[in-house]
């Protein structure tokens, strides 16, 4: 009982335990924030990995494979499959209206079916919104809110529809580049994009604004069809309208990827359906009608069906694709379906042995492994640094036991036992650890919850930019406080204090009461 009373009194009347508590608070908060950011980064990486690539992809690069409609039908007949969609993935070069030229990953997709296997419909950026974003409530900078100026008359619904179908209202095939590709859109701290409008002086002295809004214009796309050996055939160039822009939240995708309508890319890549012809044996043939020699025409012997490089597959609800084992099993099921398809089209499609069937986890494996290892390493290093708290607590408690030597003598004269005195200091250590860890937990929670605002403030006021989206993949600092991990860190914080208090507690308990009473 006297231990509880004195623990409370010592906690509230001394400066030194506050120092120990501050050390524990900082250690707990540091480890928790680190773990939350690294864990959040990994979780965001895992979830974003599926945003644009579905759960499993069946891939055959360069020339692609035909009869994909049959494959999709077979896949969608399986109860584990929710949807499948064709895709052509290739590299290209785009020239923007302001003469910028960028190398891009071009994805030819059928908008509606692609939306069924990915988060494409949510990623189309220029659309009507009812409510401003959380941090945009005061400034209302977001042009999608309507308002005045250049974007006042924009039909956002039409833009959205164009974006989703990758088509102009007149049916012309269009493209949807990533919102960071052109460099025309300025991302505000609130996450809102505002198209640039540089000021220009006109000849009569007035100031005009050049409104840069890519969906109002068109760009030039250069693609190079490849043969089965990956050699370029010829460069194909088309000028295509921009239907919309997309924002996936992944910087790499938003700055270097462009979606285009599937049939456009099939034509440009020479993967569309075409007649199969046989060249005549002789360049001229006798025309019985006219009785003259005429130029021989190639013989049409069939139709070469349209091809795609990839079919993306999305698992049905209830398939736990986040789990490594479950996604591997689902991938194997997709591979089995492909094997049946390959058997049905033997000789016309890649064999099941050579086709690439990969899960989203397979495609991101190296990055996931790197982040997991980095998380472990960072936690180990921080854990090691925080272990110094044990020695700090030990030093503080050693000093406090020395300061309280007379109190220990008094308590022994009142009948306090060796174990009772040691328990007092251990209890005190546990209290310091509990309070310190509790405050650390609250501090970490507040930091994690507001980490992007804090980062923004640091950038604005101190010029400190820690999180560069170009380096760290995502625009916002991902953070995810896992309460089971938080509990582990809090318990570790309390244990740290207990370990630090152990030696001073044993020393206090073993103190000679007579010497303690005579201590000056």
């Amino acid at each position, binding site marked *: *009982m006297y231990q509880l*009373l*004195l623990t409370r009194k010592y906690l509230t*009347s001394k400066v030194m335990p506050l120092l120990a508590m501050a050390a524990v608070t900082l250690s707990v908060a540091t480890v928790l924030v680190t773990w939350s950011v690294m864990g959040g980064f990994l979780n965001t990486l895992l979830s974003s990995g599926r945003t644009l690539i579905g759960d499993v992809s069946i891939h055959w690069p360069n020339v692609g494979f035909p009869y994909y409609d049959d494959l999709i039908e077979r896949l969608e007949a399986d109860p584990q499959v929710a949807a499948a969609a064709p895709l052509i993935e290739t590299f290209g070069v785009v020239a923007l209206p302001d003469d910028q030229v960028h190398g891009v990953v071009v994805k030819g997709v059928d908008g509606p079916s692609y939306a069924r296997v990915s988060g494409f419909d949510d990623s189309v950026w220029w659309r009507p919104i009812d409510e401003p974003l959380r941090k945009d409530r005061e400034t209302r900078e977001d042009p999608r809110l309507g308002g005045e100026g250049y974007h006042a008359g924009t039909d956002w619904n039409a833009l959205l529809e164009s974006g989703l179908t990758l088509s102009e209202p007149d049916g012309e095939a269009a493209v949807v580049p990533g919102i960071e590709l052109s460099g025309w859109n300025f991302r505000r701290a609130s996450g809102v994009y505002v198209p640039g409008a540089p000021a220009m002086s006109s000849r009569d002295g007035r100031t005009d604004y050049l409104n840069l809004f890519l969906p109002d214009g068109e760009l030039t796309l250069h693609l190079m069809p490849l043969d089965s050996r990956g050699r370029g055939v010829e460069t194909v160039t088309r000028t295509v309208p921009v239907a919309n822009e997309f924002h996936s939240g992944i910087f790499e995708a938003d700055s270097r990827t462009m979606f285009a309508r599937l049939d456009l890319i099939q034509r440009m890549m020479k993967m569309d359906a075409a007649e199969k012809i046989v060249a005549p044996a002789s360049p001229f043939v006798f025309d019985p009608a006219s009785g003259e020699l005429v130029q021989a025409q190639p013989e049409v012997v069939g139709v070469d069906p349209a091809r795609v490089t990839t079919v993306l597959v999305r698992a049905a609800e209830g398939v736990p694709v986040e789990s490594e084992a479950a996604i591997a099993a689902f991938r194997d099921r997709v591979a089995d379906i492909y094997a049946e398809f390959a058997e049905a089209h033997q000789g016309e499609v890649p064999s099941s042995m050579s086709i690439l069937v990969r899960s989203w986890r397979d495609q991101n494996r190296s990055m996931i492994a790197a982040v997991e290892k980095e998380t472990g390493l960072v936690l180990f290093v921080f854990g090691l640094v925080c272990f110094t708290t044990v020695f700090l607590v030990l030093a503080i408690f050693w000093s406090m036991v020395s300061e309280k030597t007379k*109190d220990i003598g008094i308590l022994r004269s*009142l009948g*306090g*036992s060796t174990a009772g005195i040691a328990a007092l200091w251990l209890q005190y250590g546990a209290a310091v650890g509990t309070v310190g860890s509790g405050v650390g937990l609250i501090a970490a929670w507040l930091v994690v919850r507001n980490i992007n605002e804090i980062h923004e403030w640091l950038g604005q006021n101190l010029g400190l930019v820690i999180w560069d989206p170009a380096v760290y993949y995502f625009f916002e600092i991902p953070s995810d406080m896992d309460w089971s991990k938080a509990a582990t860190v809090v318990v570790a914080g309390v244990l740290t204090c207990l370990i630090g208090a152990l030696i001073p507690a044993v020393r206090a308990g073993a103190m000679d009461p*007579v010497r303690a*009473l005579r201590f000056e």
Partner: protein
Amino acid sequence: MTETGPIISATNLHKTYKMGRVKVPVLRGLSVSARKGEWVAILGASGSGKSTLLHLLGGLDRPDRGHKDTAIHFEGKPLGKMSRHELDRYRATQVGFVFQFYHLLPELRVLENVTVGAMVRHGLTGFLGAKHKVNRRATELLDAFGLGHRLRHRPGELSGGERQRVAIARALINQPRLLLADEPTGNLDRKTGEAILDSLAALREKLALTVVMVTHDQHVADRADRVIRLADGVVAPEGVPGAENASP
């Protein structure tokens, strides 16, 4: 007021302290006893072993081994055969200590300083069960010392005399049989010291306490029933003024 029969007796006590490599003998075969209800004053100069004797009687320390017939008995039970735990219980239940420099716990309020002794004795569950009773007794003791209005003050806000009264109340909270007082007035002016001694005398009378009081002040020692004079770690021989001097 005296009663017959020793409540505590010490025989042939030796105690040597080590000061680095030097051994300093403090007690050299000291034998003393106190009867139930008796007030004994141990009188001696500084370094004569008075406080050491008090620590041995209170079970805070143990006498040197290896000397024939060395023993301390409390109500016939040898302290030397008690375990650490039994000695802790002995201090918590049978003995009350009063020190020259009060030795109050500075973070605790007056009432808490008194009840902390009961907390040590009863433990967590025992104290919670007896809390009201203990608080009432502490308040009564402090009231008796004229400190009823100081219950929520801290020791730093009290005068020396008030602090010593709190220390005595703490020593008495567990209703001990033996009160061991080490220079209880040594840090007080004469008037306050007299008042403290008056309080002690009244309590001894009321509670039938045995008091063993150490002092270097003959005037203070004269308040006791009997005075034992120490010199060089032993009881001064007969004929030395003040030695084994029973009060009238």
